Structures are given as C-alpha cells and as structure tokens.
C-alpha cells in the first residue's frame, strides 16, 4: 500500500519539524498561570472600591463569554439575544429576594433553572430553522425579554427596575463592598471555565463540533442534531442566569438598561474577539470589553463603544479565529490510551524515527 507508506513518511517529517521545545512550552504554561493569578488577585493589592468593582465586572463578562461560547464557539449557533438569560437571572433574584424572602444562595439556582427553561422554550421552535433565520429569531427573543422587562411592571418594576432588598450575606459575612462580590464572581468564572472545558472534551463536545462543522455528516454519524443544539442553548443559558443574579446584587438594582440589544451584541463580540471555542480566549475577550467599555471610559468617554467595535473589526479582519484561537485536539490521556495498547505497540506514531 504505497500511499500508506507515503502518509507515514509525511507524519515522520511533521514530527521531526520541532517548533517549540517541550521545556519552553511547560515554562510558558506556568508563566501564563502565574500571570493569570497575579492579574486575578489585583483587586486585593490595588484596594479601594473602584478596582474591585471593575474586576467583578470582568469576571461577570468572562462568565457571559464562557456561556455564549458554548452556543457560538462549540455548537456554531449564532445567538443575538443572549443577555435575555442574564436578565432572567437578575429579575428572578430580585423577585425572590424582595417578595419571597429568598437569599442570594437560594435565588441563584432558581434563576439558573428558569434561564434553562426559557432557553428550552425559545430553542424548541427556533432550532429547526437555520443560519440567518436562527439569528433573527434569537434577536426577537432578546427583544421580547427587554420589552417585557420595561412593561411588565408588576414583575420587573418597569423602567425603574427592582431594588431595595436587604443586604445579602454568606456565613455572617455581608456583601456590602465590591471586594465582597469579587470572589463570588471570580469563582463562578472559574467553575464555568472548568465545566465548559470538560464538556468540550467529551461526547457532548464532540457532537457540538460535528454539528458546527457539517450537519449532514453529523446526522450520518448518528448524532441527534436538534437535541444537541437545544443542549447547547440550555448549557449556555445556565451561566448567564447565575451571573445575572450576582450582577443584580452587586448593582443593588435590576433595570432594563442592562439587557439591551447592545449588551447582547457585545456578548457576541466578546466571544468572536477572544476566539470562538477557546476558554482562555473568551475570558480575555470579557476582560478586554470591561477594560475598554468601563475602565477607559474616564478617558475616552462615549468613544469607548467605537473603540471596542473597531477593535472587533480589526480582529475579524486580521485574525478571524480570535485573539487566542482554539486549536482542537483530543485530550492527551485519551491518546495515551490509544498508544499504550500492548497488542499494538507504539510503532509509527510516538517514535517514528525508532
């Protein structure tokens, strides 16, 4: 079989072309972890009220990016109304806290569950349509939630929003200052990152990748397409539902202004700019968004939206796969199991020169 030996030679050549020595790779990885740790702990050594507040927003936008990344990055579906789930998380907390005496801990899971239910309700009819039509329908859903927030006054407080719940606390430690919210928001980002990363490397994640790449071929592989698209919406909605509740507590108010179409647009921009499918990428996207749209606003004023959107255009033009592109590869431990079979040996794959 001459073409098989040609393939083997190509493989040997590819592996001989060493790009970065493993030791440098490892050093780079630890350097990255150290940098991330220093950056994440910045509010503690910068102190004050302003920085913890900004960093909490970064964590919340990182979580929004991670949730929407499941929909856009993993499953390849466009969602232009994602912030509707953030709104649901926020309003559910506000209602539960104001009228039913629930604490943040009790309200957060309720908000998450209702976000998932809402995503299933919107997903069921919309996921049968494709491409552009799907985008338009999610846009419509975002609109419904926004206008409902403005007009269903008994549930949402209308334009004024909902506010005035008692200060939330955990183990007697009150959430009073921004530095109190920060660990909560950061913890959510970390959990979202770990869970979505785990899903990406599993049967569900593979099914999403197949659907993103080629629906006909995914069907031929036996993957239930509609069901897995629905799962993508539901898994994505969880994180916005949870983050929305934290946001409400931090702001001390929920009002429709936070859930406009602009916000949903920026959520999509965060994912695309950071790198669709990439965990670190979309967190970086969320951080950049907050840096430009909130932090630098003191210097740039109303220009910040222009700056962020221009940056998005630049990224799409020059680096369409995003700032930190996702490089798909199967988990290393799986490949190890593939290679470590006694019946097969490792010839031709792990030690091509031997």
């Amino acid at each position, binding site marked *: 079989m001459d073409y098989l030996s040609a393939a*083997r030679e190509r493989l040997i050549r590819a592996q001989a072309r060493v790009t970065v020595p493993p030791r440098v790779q490892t050093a780079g990885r630890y350097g990255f972890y150290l940098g991330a740790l220093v950056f994440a702990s910045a509010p503690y050594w910068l102190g004050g009220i302003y920085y913890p507040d900004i960093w909490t927003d970064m964590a919340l936008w990182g979580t929004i990016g991670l949730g929407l990344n499941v929909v856009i990055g993993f499953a390849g579906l466009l969602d232009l109304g994602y912030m509707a789930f953030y709104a649901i998380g926020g309003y559910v907390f506000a209602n539960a806290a104001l009228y039913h005496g629930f604490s943040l801990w009790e309200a957060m899971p309720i908000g998450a569950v209702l976000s998932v239910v809402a995503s299933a309700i919107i997903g069921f009819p919309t996921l049968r349509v494709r491409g552009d039509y799907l985008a338009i329908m999610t846009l419509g859903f975002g609109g419904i939630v926004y206008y409902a927030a403005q007009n269903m006054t008994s549930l949402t407080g209308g334009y004024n929003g909902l506010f005035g719940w008692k200060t939330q606390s955990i183990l007697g430690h009150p959430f009073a200052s921004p530095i109190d919210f920060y660990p909560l928001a950061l913890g959510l980002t970390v959990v979202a990152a770990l869970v979505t990363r785990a899903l990406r490397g599993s049967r569900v994640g593979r099914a999403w990748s197949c659907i993103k790449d080629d629906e006909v071929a995914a069907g031929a*592989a036996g993957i239930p397409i509609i069901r897995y698209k629905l799962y993508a919406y539901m898994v994505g909605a969880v994180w916005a539902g949870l983050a929305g509740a934290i946001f409400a507590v931090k702001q001390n108010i929920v009002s429709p202004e936070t859930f406009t179409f602009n916000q949903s647009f920026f959520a999509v921009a965060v994912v695309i700019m950071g790198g669709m499918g990439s965990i670190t990428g979309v967190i970086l996207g969320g951080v950049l968004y907050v840096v430009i749209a909130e932090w630098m606003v003191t210097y740039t004023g109303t220009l910040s939206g222009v700056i962020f959107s221009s940056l998005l255009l630049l990224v799409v033009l020059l680096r369409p796969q995003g700032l930190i592109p996702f490089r798909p590869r199967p988990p290393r431990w799986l490949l190890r199991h593939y290679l470590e079979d006694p019946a097969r040996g490792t010839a*031709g794959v792990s030690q091509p020169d031997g």
Partner: protein
Amino acid sequence: MSANPTAEPLLRVSGLTVAFGGVVAVSDVSFDLPAGEILGMIGPNGAGKTTVFNAISGVIKGYRGEVRLLGRSLRGRNAQQIVAAGIARTFQNIRLFRSLTVIEHVLAGQHRRIRENMVDSALHTPRFRQAEIDAVRQARAILDFVGLDQVDPGARALSLPYGLQRRLEIARALATEPRLLMLDEPAAGMNTAESIDMSRLVRNVRERGVTVLLVEHDMRVVMSVCDRIVVLNFGKIIVQGPPEKVREDPDVIAAYLGSESST
C-alpha cells in the same frame, strides 16, 4: 425486475420516486438487498444513484414509494434515526469534520453507544473516563480494520491524504455498527493500486457481517466485488443482475456509450 429468492430481504426499495420541482430524478425504482450481499449501483452521471442513496439515508424525505429495513418502513425518519435503525453511509464528496481529529471521527460515529450523561461529561467522572477509554479501544480496532493503523490519531482529519480520508469516512460509518453500509463512490479519484485496496476493504466489510450497497464508477471495483448490480439510467432501473450478465447487456452498453464514458 428479477424475482428474489430470499423471503425477508435486509433492505427492500419499492416504487421509489423522487422529484425535485418538476424534474423527476428517480422514477419507480425497486430492488431487494438480502443480508450479506454486496449490491452495486451503477449508471451514467445524473442517473439518480446519489438520489436513491439520499432517500434511503433520510437526507431526502419527500419521496413516493417505500423503503423498508427488515420489513419496517423508514418513511419520515430523519438521518440519525436511520443510523439508529442500522444504515450508515459515506458521501461522494467526502464530508469529514474540519475541527475534528482522526480518532474523534470514529468516536463521533460511536456517539449513540458511548454511555455517559451530561453530568459525567461536565465533571469527568470515573464513569466518563471508563466510557471514553472503552470507546477509544473500539475506535482503534475500527481504524486498524480500515487500514488507518499507521496514521497519527491526533492529526486533523483534513490533513490526511485523499485516499485515507475516504477510509476514515468508512471508519466513521462502521463505528455506528450498521447492518447496511452504503458507500457512495469510495474509489473515486483513486489509482489502480488504491482501488484494489478499496475493493479488498469492501469485501472485508462484508466478512464482518455488514451488507453493502455500493455506488461506483470504477468498473474494476464494481465487477470484482459486487454479487449483483443494479443499472440506473435517467432515474430508472434498466437492468439488474449478476456482473457477467450486466457487462454484456446491450442496454447498459448503449447507456454508457450514449453519455460520458466511465473510467
């Protein structure tokens, strides 16, 4: 139509008619495919071979007539339900996933059989690990079977040479554990040595107990592996029978001479 000796064929296509707008692509096509057979489907370009494939595999749903697998109608089922029923296929223009590696293609084909739920997947529980390891072991056996044992399992599928991509598509289809494998021009674009290898693979698939429906232009492959051949022209069956009968049939010769010549 030839009378069929078997009582219960694996696949029975009767009166299949598919029209796109006003154009009838396939008209009143009927054939039986008994379990264990390799049935070839040939005909000039545009004769309707791929349309028959698409109707059987659920890509096309609006057809008249009946497609039955072991007596059960496949009407109204979507692609993955037909895979679940036991029919897998490959595509004429290879359809691999651009972001998946070699091994992940086979794992994707095993999707329905890998036992892990969403919680297992999210938390990478011991059950998840065991399910994945079992799946990888099976995937390796399938890759070995189709002759991809020397390929890096972590390589991007689209980086493989063309002939190996075809084999990977067959591996993905076999991973669904089908009763019937439908191959749409598996030897297209291959040289002589490669199409001999492909013929051997098709025969090996049958040895595994999988029935094969083969659309192919390469007459060396068709004549050497098929037990029976169905010839389509302008959406209709003009002849069906064993290779030696089909080869000498004047209608078949006319159909091929009257259009673009095959290989």
